[in-house]
């Protein structure tokens, strides 16, 4: 199974490199080759997750390695869907290297069928994590779109036209993707957190809503809520919302990867 995981990592890297090469040379044919490769990786990754599920008798989302792997799968599938829908390759060269690095981290900590806490073996928990996976995947897309928006806007404002000006579509295009993804992410995130709180009330008798990791999650939720409300009611646009999206995703990464390691509170299952 570990070999399969490494094979997937190599394939993700190959797809990422193909997208980067296509971006460099503005080659539609290479982009299409990259897309075929990505589609193959997504299918193989799906097979891998099914294999892990059968092997361990649960969805592979309990350990950091498993969760990262599943997150990479969900995000790449979301991206592939977006690319097929919009017929535009602009985000691929940036999101795929990010996913490859995450997949590499997942591979380094890979432990098939590792022991997990008993409370993680229930359906409600799986729904909680899967909802959050979708939210994080959408936030990742929003993050990349926002970063590209900022890079392109900077080139246009400073009149130092470079690689992004020639190869990226318009600012409104990235703004739209960033906003849609953030809104979809916010819905999944809210639902995921609510399910999580419900599990917490059931599992822990002495439960505090003010655990460090929970506080980071609330902050995250508030950021994306502000992102939505600001756009909806205060006509926030452009760089301001792009920066909120970037900050939001960095906080997601921190809560996802770092918080459990740094703060050993209730939401730690070691």
């Amino acid at each position, binding site marked *: 199974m570990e070999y399969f995981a490494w094979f997937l990592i190599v394939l993700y890297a190959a797809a990422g490199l193909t997208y980067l090469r296509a971006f460099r040379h503005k080659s539609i044919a290479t982009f299409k080759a990259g897309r075929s490769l990505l589609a193959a990786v997504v299918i193989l990754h799906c097979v891998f997750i099914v294999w892990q599920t059968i092997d361990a008798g649960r969805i592979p989302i309990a350990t950091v390695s498993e969760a990262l792997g599943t997150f990479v799968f969900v995000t790449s599938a979301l991206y592939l869907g977006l690319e097929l829908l919009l017929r535009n390759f602009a985000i691929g060269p940036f999101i795929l290297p990010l996913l490859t690095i995450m997949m590499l981290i997942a591979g380094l900590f890979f432990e098939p069928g590792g022991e997990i806490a008993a409370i993680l073996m229930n359906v409600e928990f799986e729904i909680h994590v899967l909802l959050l996976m979708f939210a994080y995947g959408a936030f990742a897309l929003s993050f990349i779109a926002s970063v590209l928006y900022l890079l*392109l806007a900077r080139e*246009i404002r400073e*009149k130092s*036209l470079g690689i992004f000006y020639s190869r990226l579509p*318009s*600012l*409104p295009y990235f703004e739209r993707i960033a906003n849609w993804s953030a809104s979809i992410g916010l819905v999944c995130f809210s639902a995921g957190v609510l399910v999580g709180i419900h599990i917490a009330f059931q599992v822990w008798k002495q439960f505090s809503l003010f655990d460090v990791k929970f506080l980071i999650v609330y902050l995250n939720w508030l950021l994306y809520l502000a992102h939505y409300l600001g756009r909806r009611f205060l006509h926030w*646009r*452009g*760089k301001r919302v792009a920066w909120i999206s970037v900050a939001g995703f960095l906080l997601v990464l921190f809560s996802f990867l770092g918080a459990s390691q740094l703060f050993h509170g209730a939401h730690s299952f070691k």
Partner: protein
Amino acid sequence: MPLTAFHIVFAEPPTGVSGPTPSTTLLENLSAMLAANELICIRLSGSLTVFAADVQDPAAHEASLKRTLVEAFDLQASAKLTCSLKRERSAIHFFLSVATGLARDVTSGRPHEAFEQAFAQAAESTLVGPLLSYLHQRAVWLYEKIRLETDFYRYAVQQETAVRELAEKVLEGLSELRVAILGYDAVFPAVLDELALAGCRHFEFFWSDDEVRESLVRRLNATVSSPELQSRASAIADIVLAGKGSPVALLQGQARAAGQGGRKEDEVLLFAFDVSPPQAAAGVLVYTREDLQLVMRHNLEERSGIEARVETWIKDEVRNFYSWVQSEQRFEFEGMISRSPQMQRVFEMISRIAQTDITVLIEGESGTGKELVARAIHRLSSRCEQAFVTVNCGAIPENLLESELFGHVRGAFTGANADNKGLFREADGGTIFLDEIGELAPHLQVKLLRFLQEGEIRPVGAARSVNVKLRVLAATNRNLAQLVADGDFRSDLYYRLNVIELSLPPLRNRPDDIALLAQRFIGKFSARYNKDISGLSIEALDALRAYHWPGNIRELENAMERAVALTIGSSLALHNLPETLSAPSDVGESNGHGGDAMLSLRELERRHILSTLERFEGNHEAASKALGIGRTTLWRKLREYGMGSETSKDVK
């Protein structure tokens, strides 16, 4: 020396002249002055280029050319004009570069479109001959290749396209945006046209007191606001064009107004042409003329990689041109030969559409070369490596045609012992040519329509449809529009097929081609029958020209084959031609109607067919060969005249 290019640059572009084409009078004067057989003249941003064929001693004409232009454009005698001369290969190279928009020194908004207008003008003045036609066809083909295979034409390398590019990069939904115009600059008309092309609909001029601006207002259906309202221009506009006459303080005020007007981020694009730009203010993105130059330079640098590729294609074309000239194939196009303007237009159209996947309907009488046209389209397309499948819809019995075309599965009907892929699937990835499409049965018309709409076919007896990717070319020698009107052909299929219509003129309408084609066939058959015939006698040529060629080129080919086979000596004489040609009046006389001048062409044809059949004792094969038409055409004509059954006595 086939082609010469005179490229004249004006130190100060002539005023009051617009558009890429000079006047027809100037064109005719130039052609007379240079004594050129063919000539085309194109005006592009401050320059004028004349391409002329077969000019003797071009350098001697430079001074008189300049004089003619000074007079034509009403310039002062001291006006500075520089003329550069290009000959031979460099002239051909320059022609293709100008026509495809690659030439940098004549870069203007839309070089290819400008070139097309100039070519149409030259063609109208009958100044286009085989050389310019050939070069034009190649330029069109090259342009399509560059357009389809590269991003070359997508780069903004002019001020107006740079403005459009920035607007599209920064703003959303151009059709809803407002464009405010303050002051004036010479580039405004081009910029505004470009923005209108990009979808902008709302233009507002903040003053309009001269003719140029007023014509712009009319053209763009713009509104004109009072100058007092200028201060609010950028508060209500998304794109502001500021030219001479827009005060700096005013622009600064607008920048502030935009920043305070509830706008956030880069929501107003302000283009300042030769006016001091306002200082940066929140909500306003200012681009000056120099900044636009920066955008253009950046795009040119990015494009240079593609230019190198395109340059090699042009060099290949220049090489091809010389092999074309040397091989004396001036009137040839992909195996077809003609000097008629109608056919030259067909050749040009083929070059234009070959690389797209568009469906083409080829119309023309029997024997005019419809299949050759279809083959040329296939050969010039990106599918040329794939299969080219020809189906004669009139030659296959109706009950077999469906399974022939769409295939069948085993057991679909009695005798279907194995799966059959069908011709559509055989042609997958390539081209299918459906000849005599007018003969297609109604239920097959439905199936073909379904394929054209959905891209899928269902083999006979199969449970599910199969996707097939191929290009459909159809041909007919009947009037499909009439068949549609009579209800014999589905109108929806007709419109699907008739996306592009190529109409091939009959040979009798191309008298110049008769000698050309006859000579070609003499060469072909002389080689085949090991004869040494160099040409035709004058009488024979006159007879060929006098004949009305109902069987068109096929009939001419058969007549030449027969004549070559019978000729003894080096020249093909009148008596070697078939009787119908050497004594055309025999057609009527043999039927005893020699004096009847009121016979309709249809009746004459009917009687001629009948008499030919009688002569060959009802043998369709021999009769169709003698008539110079296909067997299917003969069969169809017999059916048309109601003579189908009694004359059928074919050789099995």
